[in-house]
């Protein structure tokens, strides 16, 4: 045991040095060796210090069961924080942990340098501990059940936030008064207006809430719901802040895993491995980057794209040299630039080429009757299909249209329909949660069978028109 620990410490040192040599730039690393159930708990909660709720228990149970039956295995867990915490599984053997450590260094580099992570808090471990303590206090004060029911509702709309902006735009202050927008260029500009009477624009008296549709449903309800107590608003703020922290991770799944896979392979190749270790590493690496049939494997697709970029910038074709002025030999520099700038959507849009789609044998499939059938092989459509699935992290894009619908204080939501319908039974079960948060009837407009449909819940029953 003690020896194992020492060997691992030595491996970390070697991997660290190699990662630095490759130019990876990561946060200080804190590795922790944990038993399986602890890692699975962290994974179910998303963060070791997160608040408690039965849904996390449900996921934990499910994951733990799969581990116990040897169906799936989490090798590591890494947290976007500074210092960066990484949890290693106690039962892993040395070579498995070496691979995991190399992988984690690359993740840490990604967290630190990718622009989409720039707005995230790096002290979230502590912040979430504070959140958990607050929620515990509310449970104590207002009753466990009361808080649980409220959390059920808050979590049901947790994805409907405005993700943190990479380039923050100054918040526009309500509707700007409509006056002359250009500053006068000359002192005589007002002469132009002498011809006609200056138009008295009747200012709109009805103040709409929100002034324009907002995607941040959680924030809107938190600020405008007439029903909520302070502690309830606080819980909404907590759920929202945590979701905003997790959001960049959800929108960089492929590129982040691809980056880490690309690097763990390269770092491992530089290490002094024995023959058996090399074989086991190859075996492990192959199982991690195994293509998935029904869904793409982010480790595999992501690392393939990085390798392709490197190749194309190292040895550009004649056309690329002439057209884009690529000099060649810039592969490494290019992939570092990509890891800084892109998220999954831009990564795929910019670098998933026709050759790659064909080489990786990607396709679109659809349910036809009781079968899943391949329906599209055309590379652009496949790429766009993939990008479409990732838009808004795969969640429906829903905005708050009106917080005073029909002047009755009712909430009117609108799904921005883009060809994919909502799951109606789920939607009808979710509306009551929104009602609980808003305290008055709620409506959701969407499109079903090509026609606009509005689903409503008035506190007693669902209706549809």
């Amino acid at each position, binding site marked *: 045991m003690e020896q194992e620990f020492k060997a691992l410490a030595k491996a970390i040192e070697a991997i660290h040095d190699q990662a630095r040599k490759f130019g990876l730039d990561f946060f200080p690393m804190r590795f922790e060796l944990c038993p399986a159930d602890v890692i699975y708990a962290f994974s179910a909660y998303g963060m070791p210090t997160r608040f408690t709720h039965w849904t996390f228990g449900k996921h934990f149970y499910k994951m733990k069961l799969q581990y116990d039956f040897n169906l799936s295995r989490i090798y590591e867990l890494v947290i976007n924080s500074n210092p960066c915490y990484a949890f290693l599984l106690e039962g892993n053997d040395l070579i498995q942990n070496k691979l995991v450590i190399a992988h984690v260094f690359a993740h840490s580099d990604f967290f630190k340098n990718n622009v989409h992570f720039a707005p995230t808090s790096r002290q979230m471990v502590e912040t979430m501990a504070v959140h958990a303590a607050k929620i515990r206090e509310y449970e104590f004060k207002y009753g466990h059940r009361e808080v649980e029911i409220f959390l059920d509702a808050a979590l049901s709309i947790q994805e409907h936030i405005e993700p943190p902006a990479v380039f923050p735009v100054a918040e526009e202050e309500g509707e700007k008064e409509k006056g002359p927008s250009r500053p006068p260029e000359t002192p005589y500009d007002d002469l132009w207006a002498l011809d006609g009477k200056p138009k008295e624009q009747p200012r709109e008296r009805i103040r709409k809430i929100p002034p324009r549709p907002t995607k941040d449903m959680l924030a809107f309800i938190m600020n405008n719901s007439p029903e909520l107590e302070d502690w309830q608003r606080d819980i909404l703020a907590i759920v929202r802040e945590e979701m905003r922290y997790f959001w960049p991770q959800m929108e960089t799944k492929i590129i982040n895993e691809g980056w880490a896979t690309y690097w763990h392979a390269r770092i491992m190749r530089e290490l002094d491995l024995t023959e058996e270790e090399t074989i086991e590493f190859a075996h492990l690496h192959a199982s991690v980057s195994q293509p*998935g049939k029904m869904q793409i494997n982010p480790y595999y697709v992501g690392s393939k794209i990085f390798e392709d970029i490197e190749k194309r910038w190292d040895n550009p074709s004649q056309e690329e040299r002439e057209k884009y002025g690529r000099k060649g030999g810039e592969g490494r520099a290019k992939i570092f630039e990509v890891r800084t700038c892109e998220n999954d959507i831009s990564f795929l849009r910019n670098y998933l080429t026709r050759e790659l789609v064909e080489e990786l044998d990607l396709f679109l499939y659809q349910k036809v009757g009781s079968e899943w059938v391949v329906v599209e092989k055309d590379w652009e459509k496949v790429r766009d299909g993939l990008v479409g699935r990732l838009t808004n992290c795969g969640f429906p894009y829903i905005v708050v249209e009106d917080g005073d619908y029909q002047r009755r204080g009712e909430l009117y939501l609108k799904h921005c329909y883009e060809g994919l319908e909502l799951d109606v039974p789920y939607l009808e079960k979710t509306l009551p949660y929104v009602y609980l948060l808003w305290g008055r009837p709620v409506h959701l407009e969407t499109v079903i069978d090509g026609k606009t449909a509005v689903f409503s819940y008035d506190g007693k029953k669902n209706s549809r028109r």
Partner: protein
Amino acid sequence: MDTQYSLSREDWSLHRKGYLDQQRHQEKVREAIKKNLPQIITEESIIMGKGKKVVRVPIRSLEEYHFRFNYNQGRNVGQGSGGTQKGTVIGREAPDGAGKGPGAGDQPGVDYYEAEVTLEEVQEMLFRDLELPNLQEKKKPILASPTYEFRDVRRKGLMGNLDKKRTLLENLKRNAMKGKLFIGGIIPEDLRFKTWEEKMRYETSAVVLAMMDTSGSMGTYEKYIARTFFFWMVRFLRSKYQQVEIVFIAHHTQAREVTEEEFFAKGESGGTRCSSAYQLALEIIDKRYPPADYNIYPFHFTDGDNLPSDNETCLEAVQLLLPKVNLLGYGEIVNPYYRTSTLMNVLKRIKDERLVTVAIKDKSEVYQALRQFFAGARGRESGGTRI
């Protein structure tokens, strides 16, 4: 410069958060099961799953609802191993029709959360409020089986029943009295033997006379309801009596005793004469199950479509049956478009608390029916018949 990396191992044994929330989740599962008992007890996986101990029941209230896409419609991206063509089938829906897509986990298509419960758990929740009405102490126990209990220790006995521990203790005691502290030198006086007593164990018994209309008008659905009812009834009686026998009586215009399999599977055609079943039940009771020795529970399921001329005969037969039984149940599986039948109206003329009549409109009412039959006086205050 601070350390760029470190490795540590801590004691995580107090990290119980996952387990605590898991426990809360389990609690919610149980609550949900309790709330959904009417649906769950008619689940086919329970009724038809012969002797299976663990059943999976869908629990819809434990879904984490949110706004999501209809996954069965959209196009998804997959990956082949090269050369995949348009039109290739890459997966099929599981034949059990549970709506599961291939590639479990968070893949689209899993419609609801399924919890695993043991039959015992369901049973315990279901039976908690039920009691046996008119339970009578039967004077002559029909089955008295001898049992043996070792309760005594003697100095003489068979070597096979030697009580070694007591023997050693005696030996130690005797040596100690001589001032020597050791075990050894066992002599016949040290020996102790276990001895048994013969006891009679009295068993209570019950018999269920399951009667069902198998005329043409009883379809698979009606039979399934009856079957569900009998399934739980027998289980319930088994929890109260050591021995429960079931006699299956199928009838149309004539009644006969059949096997369980025939009872549920066989459909016959023709009219309906319910009195035939009651008469056969009377015969069977007189011949095989004297009321003095047995708790008798005849239950009759029909769609109530009886020959009008037979109704009065039924009334007589039922009045003959009632004094002999603990509870006589009459269940009518009604077609939603019907009102209760004439037979039900005739039976309602009888004022005897041992006769319980219910009308069942659909599967979920089996639970209500069970409660009405077995809720004792409490449950029936609100009136014996529901329409």
